[in-house]
């Protein structure tokens, strides 16, 4: 018999951590390959198809970037909360709420000049997401309710509310559950690279801005201190409740932006499928990136490769869409398993 002996050690450096994560991802991809093989498809062909579908053409690459835009937003949303040890599992619902708010302006508001109209929609989207995040925030701060459960339950409610409008007041002329197409004034300009839209620029600017805020301002210092130790934050005179509330609002606003990006940049209307589970995938992005904004861009793109790749696998190799979720979960498990090597010296001993 063998037994595994673990000794706690100083957490490894960021660089080693990255290397362990890359190994873990490689391991997860091997497992996914085995899974694909067990289903009668050649995993090498499948992975090759994924790579060529992304890097093999201008179209493929631009479509991958398109998918990474909402993931950057939701990744940032989850990450900013995670920085303060708050689990926002509700980015999906906040994304929808942001989209609902922005759409409401198109439906009920006047058609304004494009820059003004888009600015208002972006702001409304952020407000919508923040409003939806304010509910779990208040529940946590006032009543100590666990935010994992409250944010998650509210996702279902937000999507129901979107359905309420889509099957009711906002229904298109042909009776299908989507709004009429937005006027030109409510569409993000494109960047002359496939469907990549202005939201990409907003996303990158926010990444830089959040990096500066988190690591180079007093406010960011307070944020991180609240996350690392509530006691220390209290001694430092930080008003923790206020801080938490603010974090929730920012987190919700960022997720709301993902919604605006989808309706103004890609779909040009509100419907039930504006999010491809981006709120949930954002959790993985944030967790993998250890909440560092720049690393979020990297992992958002990495997961977009998977999403885009799996889309084409569906078409070319007839593998169902669920493969994407399965691969994502395997990556999560592998990274979690990798934690072992980050926190402990692992020795395998022979048992006497």
């Amino acid at each position, binding site marked *: 018999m063998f037994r595994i002996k673990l000794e706690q050690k100083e957490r490894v450096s960021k660089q080693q951590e990255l290397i362990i994560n890359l190994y873990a991802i490689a391991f997860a991809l091997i497992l996914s390959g085995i899974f694909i093989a067990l289903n009668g498809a050649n995993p090498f062909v499948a992975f090759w198809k994924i790579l060529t579908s992304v890097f093999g053409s201008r179209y493929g690459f631009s479509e991958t970037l398109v998918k990474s835009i909402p993931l950057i937003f939701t990744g940032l949303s989850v990450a900013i909360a995670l920085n303060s040890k708050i689990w926002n599992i509700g980015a999906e619902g906040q994304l929808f709420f942001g989209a609902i708010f922005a759409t409401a302006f198109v439906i009920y508001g006047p058609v304004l000049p494009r820059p003004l109209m888009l600015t208002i929609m972006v702001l409304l989207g952020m407000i919508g997401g923040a409003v939806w995040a304010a509910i779990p925030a208040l529940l946590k701060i006032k009543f100590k309710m*666990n935010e994992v459960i409250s944010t998650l339950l509210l996702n279902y409610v937000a999507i*129901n509310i979107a359905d309420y409008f889509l099957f009711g007041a906002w229904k298109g002329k042909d009776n299908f559950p989507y709004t009429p197409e937005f006027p030109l004034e409510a569409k993000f300009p494109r960047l002359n690279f496939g469907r990549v839209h202005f939201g990409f620029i907003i996303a990158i600017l926010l990444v830089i801005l959040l990096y500066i805020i988190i690591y180079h301002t007093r406010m960011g210092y307070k944020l991180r201190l609240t996350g690392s130790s509530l006691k220390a934050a209290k001694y430092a005179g930080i008003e923790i409740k206020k801080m938490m509330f603010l974090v929730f609002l920012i987190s919700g606003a960022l997720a709301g932006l993902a919604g605006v990006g989808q309706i103004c940049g890609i779909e040009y209307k509100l419907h039930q499928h504006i999010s491809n589970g981006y709120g949930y995938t954002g959790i993985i992005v944030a967790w993998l990136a250890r909440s560092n904004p720049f690393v979020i861009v990297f992992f958002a793109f990495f997961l977009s490769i998977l999403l885009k790749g799996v889309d084409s696998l569906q078409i070319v190799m007839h593998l169902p869409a669920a493969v994407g979720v399965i691969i994502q979960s395997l990556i999560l498990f592998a990274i*979690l398993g990798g934690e072992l090597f980050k926190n402990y010296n692992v020795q395998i001993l022979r048992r006497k």
Partner: protein
Amino acid sequence: MSDLITILFTAIASGTIILYATIGEIITERSGILNLGVEGMMLMGAFFGYFVAYHTGNLFLAILGAAIIGGLMGLIHAFMTITIRANQVVSGLALTMFGTGISAFFGIGLVGKTLKFSIQPIFIPILSKIPIVGEILFKHNILVYFAYVLPFVIWFIFAKTKWGLALKSSGEEPLSSEIMGIHVIKVRYIATIVGGMLIGISGAYLSVAYSKLWVEGMTAGRGWITIALVIFANWNPLIAYGGAYLFGGLTQLGLNLQKFNIAFPIILLKSIPYIFTLLFLLFISLRGKRSNLPKSLGLAYFRENRE
């Protein structure tokens, strides 16, 4: 009147789904392991139970299969959180994604397939003859009756047996438990696996007995509601008993409001279970009573620290 009886009857039938899962999750959490993978485990149970039921036509095998698959999912979570000591929140989320994906992937062939058998209700002699109460409580199928008994059994184990004591103390004070001779790691493994088995059964009950069909993602958030109900029940199986049926009742009431001519947008009614769950949680927090929350819930346990 007959409308009301029907609603209460279905309340029991739908409450049974979350009752099994809630009891399972209580067992797991009492040992100190937080399992947020309920939604995924339930889906796996629902899929695999339906798969076995469809191919064998045997209810017992279907439930057994779902229990085994749920137990295996529990084993994954136990390995990640107890042996590897990974973050319990992330492991649970990964488990939910995994279960959602795998069940959707392998379940494609089952969509639209109907079972060749249906579970017959058993009218309990004498009891089912009682007016109203008999109609509501004693004209169900065997799985519902089993769920009547289960919370009492688990409560008894918790309160009156050595096993229960070992389980609870592992969740409260793992280090002292170890000194008292309790093998905390073993206890937590068993609790997570047994919890997973019951969650698997809840899924099979949903697909095979309640809905009588398999649809991708059919649990529709019931796994998350379960986690909230555990808190509502204050980790006590007997309260879970009432909680699950109350919850089933409220859900049915929501779906039936139209019948009573109460004007309310139909689509928003689908939100009622989620909103009620939030209100439940709010109510618990306002009540502010002593909580049975296991002290070490969600914390990794280091056996090495004991020396």
